[in-house]
């Protein structure tokens, strides 16, 4: 039993408030990812949970106990740092054993735990090396191993993969996910990379400026972003936004007019919107594709094309000069400068009010498309 609960957590540095009363409940065994742009407070939040930063206000509960006043080491957590923070003057074995020696564990028990972790993380051949003599991926595994041997209630990860190259990052992502499946502990993971968040998380918490913007299962965040920020942050490439005007709106859909005067239909709950309102239409690149001239869609000029063989990206100038990105499967015969109509499926549209809040979508999921 080691869920983590945050009640109105606040962090202030002097007069500057960087975390504005965060409430969050992380269930036992959950893999929770904090994601957000740099400076959003995700690392500060993690360090407060870890006990490395003092909590200005609010309650932090781990496994049901309030731990605000406990020191980092007393909270039963383990952390993997962005820089790995391996002790450079100790061998891998000594790095793994250091924390256990600190709590005066019996030598035999330490040895067996270190051996177990080394086996699990394939570190056995490197136990007597210094961190300097290891590759990036191996150092990363030592850092994880150092957390594993402690058998903590909760694992904390602070951007652990950001120092690795792209290929290793994919591998380590899989290894961390596999580790979570195997030992089943609660894990809290901080990253600025939404791909990591989408692929690993049971639950994503999107943060901006010290506040939670939205939390939920990855696919829910993708399908039902509550505001323009989350919509833009989750999904890659980024969602396209096109300024439109409401022509007609009711509970069954919204009729829009784009800047070039074309009519568009979106299956979004239009209650609360009135004709003449300025809104933004949000369509993901993967939901746009060239169609016939008279279908529901927007006009655009192709500026640049990236053909990857199995998939293609079109970078277009849309109505009113706004940039529009299109992600298509397969290859395309279109050339630079081509005029196209990009079809918009009414079910896959998002509509955001001027304050950024999303109108609820009427039908969800890809199945509709």
């Amino acid at each position, binding site marked *: 039993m080691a869920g983590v609960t945050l009640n109105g957590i606040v962090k202030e540095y002097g007069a500057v408030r960087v975390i504005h009363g965060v409430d969050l409940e992380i269930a036992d065994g959950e893999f929770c990812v904090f994601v957000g742009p740099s400076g959003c407070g995700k690392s500060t939040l993690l*360090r407060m949970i*870890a*006990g*490395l930063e003092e909590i200005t206000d609010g309650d932090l509960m781990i496994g049901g106990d309030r731990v605000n006043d406990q*020191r*980092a*080491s007393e909270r039963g*957590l*383990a*952390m993997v*740092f*962005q*820089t*790995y*923070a*391996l*002790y*450079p*003057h100790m061998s891998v074995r000594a790095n793994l054993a*250091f*924390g256990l020696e*600190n*709590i005066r564990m019996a030598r035999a028990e330490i040895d067996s735990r270190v051996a177990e972790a080394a086996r699990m993380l394939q570190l056995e051949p490197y136990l007597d090396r210094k961190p300097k003599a290891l590759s990036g991926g191996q150092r990363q595994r030592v850092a994880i191993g*150092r957390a594993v041997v*402690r058998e903590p209630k909760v694992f904390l990860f602070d951007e652990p993969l950001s120092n690795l190259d792209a290929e290793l990052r994919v591998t380590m992502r899989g290894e961390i996910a596999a580790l979570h499946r195997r030992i089943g502990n609660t894990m809290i993971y901080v990253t600025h990379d939404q791909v990591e968040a989408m692929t690993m998380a049971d639950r994503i918490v999107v943060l901006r400026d010290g506040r939670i913007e939205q939390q939920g299962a990855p696919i829910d965040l993708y399908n039902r972003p509550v505001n323009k920020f989350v919509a833009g942050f989750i999904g890659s490439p980024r969602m396209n936004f096109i300024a439109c005007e409401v022509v007609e709106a009711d509970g069954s859909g919204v009729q829009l007019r784009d800047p070039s005067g074309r009519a568009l239909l979106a299956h979004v709950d239009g209650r609360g919107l009135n004709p003449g309102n300025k809104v933004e239409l949000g369509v993901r690149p993967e939901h746009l594709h060239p169609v016939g001239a008279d279908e529901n869609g927007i006009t655009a000029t192709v500026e640049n094309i990236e053909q990857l063989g199995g998939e293609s990206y079109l970078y277009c100038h849309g109505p009113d000069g706004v940039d529009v990105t299109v992600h298509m499967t397969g290859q395309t015969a279109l050339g630079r400068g081509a005029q196209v109509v990009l079809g918009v499926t009414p079910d896959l549209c998002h509509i955001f009010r001027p304050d950024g809040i999303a109108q609820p979508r009427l039908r969800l999921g890809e199945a509709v498309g």
Partner: protein
Amino acid sequence: MFGWILGRRGRHGFDLTDWLAFGFLGLGVVLMLGPVLWLVLSSFKTEAALQEYPPKFLPLAPIERVVPGYEQPLQMFTVTAGEHAGRELAQVRRIGLNAQMVDPANPEERLNVNIGDREPLREFGVATENYTGVFSRFNFMLYFWNSTFITIVATVLTVLFNSMAAFALAKYKFTGRNAVFVLIIATLMIPPTITLVPLFLVISQMGMVNSHWGVIWPAIATPTGVFLLRQYMLTIPDDLLDAARMDHASEWRVYWKIVLPLSAPALAVLVIFSVMWRWNEFLWPLIVLNRSEVFTLQLALNSFQGELQTSWSNLLAMTVLTLLPITIVFAFLQKYITQGIAQSGVK
């Protein structure tokens, strides 16, 4: 022909400026090492050889012999000219331009020899008694031990206290940190020589006059050391300390098991400085230590050179013994010492 030795690396040819450069450096070597070498050579000469003028380069001692009928040993000469040419005689005394001499085989008969016609007999003799005398007659070991005690204790405490302070200043955020740091740095500008009188009051009030602790305590809180170590510790990533804290390490353990080992290069520089400072220190011990049994080597040397104007033999040997430890350390750690000093800009 020797161009490859003297030439600048990677260049061919050897122009006038190169000759001038090596001329200058050669002169520099003679001027810098010559005096030390002369001291070492002289320290192996007997008292008689030291009195000789002009001095000989190598320790060639004039031979003396005990001649029956004379209390003092007499110096031996070989006669080069005149009626006694070729004989080896002992000189009894000089009278004007003549020397009164005797043949050791026949001490009854006095012979007169012109002083220009005789030359001293010499043998190569290393006067090790200069050194043994330093130990047996001058209690060298006591002063050596006093110096060693002060150097070791002060260095250990300097490294310990300075690194603790540097750790606090480099790795904690607390109100007053900057004020403390500025205060410590400001003392860099206050030379210890201007607080001699009041410092003596403090030391005497603490009953530490004529105690080694009176030399040790004022010396160990060096602003140089704190500054040097703090700058180095700033380069140790904070994550490392946080990781250790997550690993159940207490702050003391973080300091002792993580920060100290990682600061080893900077600590080594401070150790070298501290040893040099304490071993060579003179003015403050001169004020605090007034009884000869607590003298450091430097004080002992100074007081002997005052007392024994004529007994150079032991004084020279003792000087050599005093410069020996630092020289040995320098010979082995030359590279690190010069690098450390060049980088930190302190001495």
